[in-house]
């Protein structure tokens, strides 16, 4: 049993855990020392740690396999710090496969949409092909509905997780695409990370299972660092969210609205562009740099200048009264997984209690989903 390990992972002090679980501090010490818990203590500890009781059991073979795939892409210096998020993601993936039907295969696009190389022009081409396939060929409009496209037409199992340790993660396992996004209050950052992770799914060889964990600097938009693939998928994300034709049309209109007379693109135009395309100021600035609309190195300089003078681009945009970004909505749960879970309960592939624990929904919630989807004859 992994009570000690799970408590250590939580980062909670024994006093905090005692307060949250209602288990006396002296009893908690006994449990940590190996005393056998009662089921009520297991339940209360699991609730306090926000995990299920089964998480106290040793990890399963599928969890270990997924964990190994994630670890292969993590630099040795980061392996120790990544253990907890990797364990969490591996558990989520293994649990998803308990709910998914065995016989169904994943979507075909990972083998059909492939980059020709890893240069910037390849990222541009891939983003254009992506818009052709999933956005009705529209190469102008902003794409704030990317999360809906991801879980719908693309069949991605998209999860939102609470983690300060990583920005996003993706995996292709048994032909099933998974994306994990860390919840952020600034949703344009999550949108960029989603596009970045889709880039990973497209850039990888689809014939093999893979998993990638991205820390914030991997999804850094202004200064590409780390693995070469990160630069390519960052470029893909920029090209997808800010298509060249769309940027051209938007900048022309923005200049009209602002009554700009001077040549070049300044900080106000970039702030406006960021709002229109549901991205951050930094992403808009870097994209304009890559499109040759501002000089090389200009994005970083503008960002630095903005932060020195204004402290925060978003505050400045508010002061200027620029229009708000379009809403970006992320589903709380992969909708296909919910439907597969209900089907699995009906067929006896998974129990309702297990599905409820995996999906973090109450049994009564699953009844409601069932009632809405399956009307009795």
């Amino acid at each position, binding site marked *: *049993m992994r009570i000690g390990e799970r408590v250590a992972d939580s980062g909670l002090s024994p006093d905090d855990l005692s307060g949250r679980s209602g288990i006396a501090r002296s009893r908690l010490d006994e449990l940590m020392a190996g005393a*056998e*818990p*009662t*089921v*009520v*203590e*297991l*339940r209360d500890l699991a609730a306090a740690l926000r995990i*299920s*009781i*089964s998480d*106290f*059991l040793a990890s399963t073979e599928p969890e270990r396999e997924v964990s190994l795939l994630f670890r292969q892409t993590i630099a040795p210096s980061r392996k120790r710090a990544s253990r907890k998020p990797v364990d969490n993601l591996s558990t989520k993936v293994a649990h998803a496969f*308990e709910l998914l039907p065995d016989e169904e295969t994943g979507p075909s696009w990972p083998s059909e949409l492939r980059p020709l190389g890893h240069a910037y022009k390849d990222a541009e081409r891939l983003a254009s092909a992506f818009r052709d396939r999933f956005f009705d060929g529209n190469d102008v409009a902003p794409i704030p509905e990317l999360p809906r496209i991801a879980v719908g037409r693309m069949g991605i199992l998209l999860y939102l997780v609470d983690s300060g340790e990583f920005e996003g993660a993706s995996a292709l396992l048994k032909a099933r695409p998974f994306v994990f996004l860390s919840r952020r209050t600034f949703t344009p950052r999550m949108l960029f990370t989603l596009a970045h992770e889709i880039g990973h799914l497209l850039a990888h060889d689809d014939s093999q299972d893979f998993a990638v964990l991205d820390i914030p600097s991997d999804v850094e938009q202004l200064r590409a660092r780390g693995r070469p693939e990160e630069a390519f998928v960052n470029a893909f994300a920029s090209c997808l969210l800010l298509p060249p034709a769309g940027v051209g049309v938007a900048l022309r209109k923005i200049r009209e609205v602002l009554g700009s007379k001077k040549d070049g693109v300044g900080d106000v135009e970039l702030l406006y562009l960021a709002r229109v395309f549901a991205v951050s100021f930094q992403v808009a600035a870097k994209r304009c740099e890559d499109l040759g609309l501002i000089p090389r190195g200009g994005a970083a300089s503008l960002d630095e200048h903005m932060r020195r003078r204004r402290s925060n681009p978003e505050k400045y945009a508010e002061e200027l009264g620029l229009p708000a970004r379009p809403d970006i909505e992320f589903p709380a749960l992969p909708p296909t997984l919910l439907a597969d879970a209900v089907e699995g*309960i*009906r*067929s*006896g*592939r*998974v*129990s*309702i*209690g*297990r*599905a*409820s*624990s995996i999906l973090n929904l*109450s*049994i*009564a919630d*699953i*009844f*409601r*989903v*069932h*009632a*809405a989807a*399956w*009307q*009795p004859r």
Partner: protein
Amino acid sequence: MATEVVLDACTIITLDGCGALDVILLIEGYDFYLGPIVEGECRPGCGTALDGHIAAKRLTRVPVADVPATLFLDLLQRYRLGDGETECLTVCGGLDYLIATDDMAARRAATELYGAEKLTGSVGLLRIAVTRGLLTPSAAMGYYNRGRRAGAFLPDIGEDYFRP
């Protein structure tokens, strides 16, 4: 001697949702129990109903000591069911109770462990209520239909099932 039945959360939620729990818990010769984890799974939705039935002694809490953690964890690992379903299997194993669950995977595990004779569910309990004269077959069918409409996971049956 009374037949002792440990209720799973899906059965409690189904019976409470369709309005039949009050009737089922009155079946003579049957004592009904719920474990601490199942109770947690039923709250808050069925909380008021459970409090009333427990206070009226129509429903009894299984003492924590009667749910041995070692057996519970062993069954959890073996069957990969939910915590409440596993708790029911644990109680059934330790105390020789009947298990009432509507979940197909849990029913399969219970049959494998203890045999089909140790198993019942919402429709089985409704049928017993009919045989004891607490319900007519058409009233039982009405509860069944109401439960299905509320999303309960119940098998396809007709009114004949409830006819003695």
